[in-house]
Every structure is written in structure tokens, then in C-alpha cells.
């Protein structure tokens, strides 16, 4: 299948998306002038210019893009003298000077005012929401609708979390955004959030720690300000990060998280590769592979170590129709290439997941996508003293919580993937439930809020009844508690 790109990796024509690029921006990459577009991140501008290597280890092993959403460390670079800048989160600006790092960088000497004199502000609010993805947006909006003062913090420079790169139409019911594409849902939420006078939005701001008396520290790159926030309620909507897989060559540039490739492709409009091998036939692997076809790439195969497809059949059927094989009971043996991915060897496995010698097959490709699950991001919660549990069905370490998504620390809530890996629709409903509970904590048991909350609790129960979601149900049983004051289950 032919690609649609001309001269660089940018996609100029897409069946679903329209990429609105800003004015060209000239910047310097290792003293060479380069061009990006306003609104792009540094990492994206570099990738568009054909830069696959984002850093090197001390020993000189190259590192490429992996997560592209500010969770991993593969895109750390030196920008205007400051090391360890997450270039996947920092927009490209005229005249900036960007250098790659080799091993650990040295701490720079302090040279300018902005690095030394961050303004400090103390803020009080009814609700602090950490994370501007579907769960966080829903929580913020619901609390604000009932008149609560909300501070919404997001590390990225835009809202929507991973909804912004979802181009497929969501399942669910019509009144809960079913049938709409993920990025369209993000647009609906963003508009409502921006219009609501009770919500203050801080983008490009990192919640870096939770301290004594649940004081939250925020560092804003946008206005060089450190905020100390005292909130009556904290809603954590910190999302998740992509899992890695151990195999020879897994650190070659061109081995990427499937979600990372989806960001490059759907959020910024670059073709992340031309010939692709996907590892993992869960929903993420299936959906991203389909979207790669839509963007004009060629997906060689999807390998899945389990005896069956992990995701929904309909997502698998969508990609099978265009001739992409899904190889169950297959895994990746190694990825090879000179400095970047040139191909991969896959192998069949037996009933005990052991590779069967002699069944190896080479696949030429320039991109290997790792789609082997996600891990909830719960570091801040652990700092808050929340009781956690290791629940493999939910993706790892997750907090105990009530059916209203309140943790063992009263007033601290958890929603979305950070509470256990599910999907955007359930994140939104959890956000509403948590948001409504903050309302009852601040204003008392308002009838409308309580009734609305019960409606959403019922909806979630119904939604999760599907036989194919039994794993999630099992996981949730392990973390459900009666009240935030007890960790009894």
C-alpha cells in the first residue's frame, strides 16, 4: 500500500483527521538549522526531519522515541542549556538550540533569572484535579457544574489526555459519547471546561509531589511558578504508561510503544514508519495497526503470544479485511538493524509459551510496535499515603477505593487508567462519580448530585457486565472498600 507523505514524514492527507499546522519555526539542532511548525513539540519536529536517534547511553547505544506522552525518558535533550527536557512535551520555539544527550548530562551553571527565581504562589481550592485526560476532565466539569471551585492541572500544553489521538469511534451508548471519535469527545470536553468560570486550568504544569497535610506542589513551565495547593478534594487522573517487553534489540530506535506511534501519527500527523510489525493483539495493538493503514503505512503482521486475540473481535476483523495477518501463539524473538530497526524475527510458541525452534520467520520492517499492556501511574497516590494493592488484572499497583472512587485517604480520589487499566468511557463515568462525590463532601448530600451519582454507578456496573470484561471485574473486587475510613473489602 502506498504512503501519502511527500518529502518528509508529515501526513498531508488523512481520511479522518485534518492537521492544522502553525507557521514554520526555525530552530537549531546540534548547530544545524531545522524547521518545524508552531504547535509541534521539539521531538516531533526532529522526527519529521528524519531524526530517529533521540539520545545515547553512556556506552553509546542509541535511543529512539518510545512513549511520546511525557512518561518515559527516551526523548530527554538539552534545550537552551537545560538538560533532561522532555522534548515530547516542549513546543518548538524560534531560535532554540537543541542537543542530544549521551549518558547522564551535567547540571548546568545557573545563567538566567528564570531558572533561579520561580514565583511562588499559594492556592486554595475545593477540588484539585491532576490530569487533563477523560477522567480528569469529567471530574472537573461535574464538580464545577455544582458550583465548586476547581483547579485542573495538566502536564501537556493541551487538554484531552490520550483522547486527542483516538480516531476510532467509541463504543457505549449515545448519551455517553458512544459513536463519537475520541478526539471529538476531547473537543466537547475542552470547550465546556474553558467556558466554565469555576474551573482554572493550568497546562504545562507538573504535579511534582504531595506533602504533609496533603499539600500538593505544582511546577508550571508556562509561567515559571511554583504553586502550593491546599485542596479539600484531590482527584488523581494521572493515567498510565506503556509496558515494555524484553527481547534482543528492544532498544533500537524504531521499537516504539504503540501508543507512542499513535501520538506521532494522529496527534501530530507524521507517519511513524512505513512497514510495521505490531506485538500484541489487544485493543491497542489492533486499533493502532488499523490507524496505521489509514495513515498510509503497511502493517506486515500482528503477533500475539496468547492462543487468541486479546481485543474485541470487531477490531481484529477491521484489520484482517485489508489483509493484515494476526499470528496468535507467536512472539518476537529479536529485532535487528544497523543503528535502527531494519527487521524482526518472530517465532511460534508452544502451549507453555516456549519458542519452537525452526519456526522462526524474518519480517523486514522499520517500526516495531510494542502493544503489551499499560501500567497505572500511581506514584503521587503512594506519596499521599493511600493504601495500594498489587492487582495484575488492573495492570499493577492500584489504590483501594470505594465505589465512588475515593481512596483510603478521605478526599483523595482516583479515576481512569490510574485506578486500573480500562478505557476512556469508563474513565469519564468514574470522573463524574468522583466529581459528584466531591460535591457531596463540600456541600452535603445534595439530592440531585446523589441521584446523578447513583445513575452513573449503575451504568458502570451494567457496562462492566460483559463476559469479555470478566478480568476487570475480578480485579475490581480486590480493591473495592466500603468506606475511605476502612480498608476492609
Amino acid at each position, binding site marked *: 500500500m*502506498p*504512503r*501519502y507523505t*511527500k518529502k518528509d514524514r508529515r501526513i498531508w*492527507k*488523512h*481520511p*479522518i483527521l485534518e492537521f492544522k499546522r502553525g507557521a514554520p519555526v526555525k530552530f537549531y539542532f546540534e548547530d544545524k538549522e531545522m524547521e518545524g511548525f508552531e504547535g509541534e513539540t521539539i521531538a516531533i519536529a526532529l522526527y519529521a526531519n528524519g531524526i530517529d536517534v533521540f539520545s545515547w547511553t553512556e556506552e553509546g547505544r542509541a535511543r529512539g522515541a518510545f512513549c511520546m506522552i511525557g512518561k518515559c525518558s527516551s526523548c530527554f535533550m538539552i534545550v537552551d542549556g537545560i538538560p533532561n527536557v522532555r522534548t515530547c512535551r516542549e513546543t518548538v520555539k524560534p531560535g532554540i538550540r537543541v542537543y542530544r544527550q549521551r549518558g547522564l548530562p551535567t547540571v548546568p551553571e545557573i545563567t538566567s533569572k528564570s531558572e533561579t527565581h520561580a514565583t511562588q504562589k499559594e492556592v486554595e481550592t475545593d477540588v484539585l484535579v491532576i490530569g487533563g485526560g477523560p477522567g480528569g476532565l469529567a471530574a472537573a466539569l461535574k464538580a464545577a457544574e455544582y458550583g465548586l471551585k476547581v483547579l485542573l492541572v495538566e502536564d501537556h500544553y493541551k487538554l484531552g489526555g490520550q483522547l486527542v489521538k483516538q480516531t*476510532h*469511534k*467509541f*463504543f*457505549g*451508548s*449515545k448519551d455517553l459519547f*458512544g*459513536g*463519537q*471519535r475520541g478526539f*471529538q469527545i476531547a473537543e466537547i470536553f475542552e470547550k465546556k471546561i474553558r467556558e466554565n468560570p469555576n474551573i482554572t486550568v493550568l497546562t504545562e504544569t507538573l504535579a511534582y509531589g504531595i506533602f504533609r497535610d496533603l499539600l500538593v506542589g505544582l511546577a508550571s513551565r508556562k509561567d515559571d511558578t511554583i504553586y502550593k495547593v491546599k485542596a479539600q478534594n484531590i482527584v488523581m487522573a494521572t493515567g498510565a504508561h506503556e509496558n515494555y517487553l524484553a527481547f534482543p534489540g528492544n532498544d533500537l530506535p524504531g521499537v516504539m510503544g504503540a501508543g507512542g506511534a499513535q501520538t506521532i501519527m494522529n496527534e501530530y500527523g507524521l507517519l511513524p514508519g512505513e512497514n510495521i510489525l505490531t506485538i500484541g493483539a489487544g485493543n491497542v495493538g489492533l486499533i493502532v495497526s488499523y490507524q496505521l*493503514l*489509514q495513515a498510509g503505512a503497511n502493517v506486515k503482521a500482528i503477533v500475539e503470544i496468547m*492462543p*487468541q*486475540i486479546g481485543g*474485541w*473481535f*470487531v*477490531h*481484529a*476483523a*477491521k*484489520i*484482517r*479485511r*485489508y*489483509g*493484515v495477518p*494476526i499470528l*496468535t501463539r507467536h512472539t518476537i524473538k529479536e529485532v535487528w538493524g544497523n543503528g535502527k530497526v531494519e527487521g524482526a524475527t518472530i517465532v511460534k510458541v508452544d502451549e507453555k509459551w516456549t519458542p519452537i525452534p525452526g519456526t522462526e520467520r524474518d519480517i523486514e520492517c522499520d517500526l516495531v510496535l510494542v502493544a503489551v499492556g499499560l501500567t497505572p501511574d500511581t506514584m503521587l497516590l503512594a506519596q499521599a499515603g493511600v493504601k495500594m494493592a498489587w492487582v495484575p488484572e488492573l495492570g499493577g499497583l492500584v489504590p483501594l477505593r470505594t465505589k465512588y472512587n475515593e481512596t483510603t485517604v478521605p478526599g483523595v480520589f482516583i479515576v481512569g487508567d490510574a485506578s486500573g487499566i480500562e478505557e476512556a*468511557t469508563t474513565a469519564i463515568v468514574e470522573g463524574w462519580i468522583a466529581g459528584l462525590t466531591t460535591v457531596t463532601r463540600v456541600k452535603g448530600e445534595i439530592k440531585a448530585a446523589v441521584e446523578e451519582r447513583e445513575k452513573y454507578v449503575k451504568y458502570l456496573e*451494567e*457496562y*462492566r*457486565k*460483559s*463476559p*469479555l*470484561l470478566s478480568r476487570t471485574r475480578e480485579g475490581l473486587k480486590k480493591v473495592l472498600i466500603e468506606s475511605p475510613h476502612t480498608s476492609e473489602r
Partner: protein
Amino acid sequence: MSSEIPSFRVNGIITLEDLKKYGLLPPEERLKRGPVAIAECPEKIPCNICVDACPSGAISMESIIELPVIDWEKCTGCSLCVSLCPGLAIFVVDLSPPDKALVTVPHEFIPVPQRGDEVILLSREGKRLGKGKVVRVYERNKTYAVTVEVPKEYAMEVRAIWVEKEEKNQ
């Protein structure tokens, strides 16, 4: 254990036998009378978009996690569900023309075919089954429902189309 896994969960391709088993296949007699929707949706996905989508009220569901039930008599084959189903899992098949069949499939790729174009016909596993003429195209939220003429023997096999890109566009 593995013998209990339906084959569509292993290879991503559903068989007519399985469609029949799940009550998703309209009777032959109904297909011969005119266009009718077939939801190739054998799993209990929490989704009921098709129920709201159908202007004839022909699709029902006991609860959001049940399979769609299409009332073949109420269904007019209008194809609205083809472009609205989030799983791109609904197709419309019409066996009423004497010398050919008409199949309506979802399409989310560029270029978008125009009426009269000859496009490549693809099976559930991406096998090329020759070419067919496009007789109708319409769109809902960027999903196109494309109706193509298909040899009668391929009516239950063609489930996608592909439009060859012209070299000059590259």
C-alpha cells in the same frame, strides 16, 4: 481449553456457521427479497449505537451488553447503521437483482470512491475477489458506506473495498 475458543477469536474471521449460531444471519429468503443488514457482532460489547441509529426501529438489544437483534422484516436495508456502527461490523446485503448482488461496506480510507468507479473487492481475510462497480456512496462522521456490485457467489464474502491509488498522487 483451546478447543473452546471460537475460531473468530483466533484468526479475526467469522464464519457463516458462527453468524448463524449467534442468530446474526438473515434467512436466505429475506436476502432474496431485498437489502437487509447483517451485524457481524458476535461479542457482548457494551455498545448500543446501532439501536439508536436505525430509523426503522429494527434493531433492539435487551441491555447494552447483549448482541444486537435485527428484525429482518422491519429492516429496510437503508445502510445508515453501516456508517454509524463504531465497530464497523454491520453490512447490508441485497440478493434481489437477478444477475448480481449488492453489498454495502464501511470505508474509512482515502481515496473515497465515487459512484461508477470500479473498486477492488476484499474478503474478510483481505483476499482480492475481483472488482466491482460502486453504485452508492454516503458518509456519516467520516465513515463512508459504499455499495458495490458483487458476483452473486461472493455476496456473503465481500466485506471491504479497496481503491487503488493513482501514481500521480504520490
